[in-house]
């Protein structure tokens, strides 16, 4: 999966969780004070990405040690999460 496909999937997942109520940009932060997602919604996004990864034939592991150790990075932005999603699709 290339990064553009991953971005499309991640944005779609966030959009679903936010019920289309916000404009999603690649730079949008996923954690922290300015994030549109609270912790519950962030978990919902991760669970949705698990399902979408399953449809694409790979496992998206958002609890992996590697992902967790740089979790602030992974959730730094939509683009960063998409990058992690794309990376895991290649494993």
């Amino acid at each position, binding site marked *: 999966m290339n990064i553009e496909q991953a971005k499309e999937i991640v944005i779609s997942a966030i959009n679903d969780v936010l019920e289309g109520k916000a404009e999603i940009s690649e730079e949008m932060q996923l954690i922290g004070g300015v994030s549109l997602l609270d*912790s*519950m919604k962030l*978990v919902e996004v991760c669970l949705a990405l698990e399902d979408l990864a399953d449809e694409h034939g790979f496992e998206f592991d958002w609890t992996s040690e590697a992902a967790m150790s740089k979790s602030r990075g992974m959730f730094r932005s939509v683009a960063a999460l998409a990058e992690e999603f794309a990376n895991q699709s290649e494993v």
Partner: protein
Amino acid sequence: MIIVTGTSRGLGQAIAERLIDGGEEVIGLARNTSGLNINAIECDVSDYASVKNASKEVKRMKKPVTAFINAAGVASMNMAVTTDESTVQKLIQTNLFGTIYCCQLFAPIMLRQKQGSFINFSTIAVALALKGESVYAASKAGVETFSRTFAREMADFNVRVNCIAPGPIRTDLLRGITDTQIEKITSQQVIKKQFQKADVCDLVELLLDKKASSLSGQVLNVGGV
């Protein structure tokens, strides 16, 4: 499906057998599964990678997990000054880290379901600050604090987290403890008697019952403090 750790002996085994008798499908997690007469996955709870593999295996079963019972544990009754370093590490690694690993790695299954219950195990030694159990009690105090906090994190997802804190239940963990020592402990409980594994199994069933749906973030001290 209910997952129980430490099913090769002691409380874990008793709880698994009780739940199976009650018609539940139980998956045991144990370091050594050979000879076990229940469905079990080999797992060392003190090893993050091992717990991770077990969680993946359970996830692939694609069955709802209604409860996860963290019954695996080790004990050492010693004064802190006579407890060697490896024992300190083993107690913290198995009792505290093991509980945390299991909770954090199995939680996503329940988060997805928006339903579930974790039961973790502490000890009455925490509330009573029992002399000669400082490191063991410290590891379990960590479990209590983790559980109370984790309960708040899980509450929005309709997942409950509670602790059972038994007194001196007759299991392998109490090897070498004399009746006099046991009486010294039970005399500090509200109900001054030694409870049995069956009493703890009763509490597990109570916490799993729908009637306990208002209980989360609680520590049930067996015998009372």
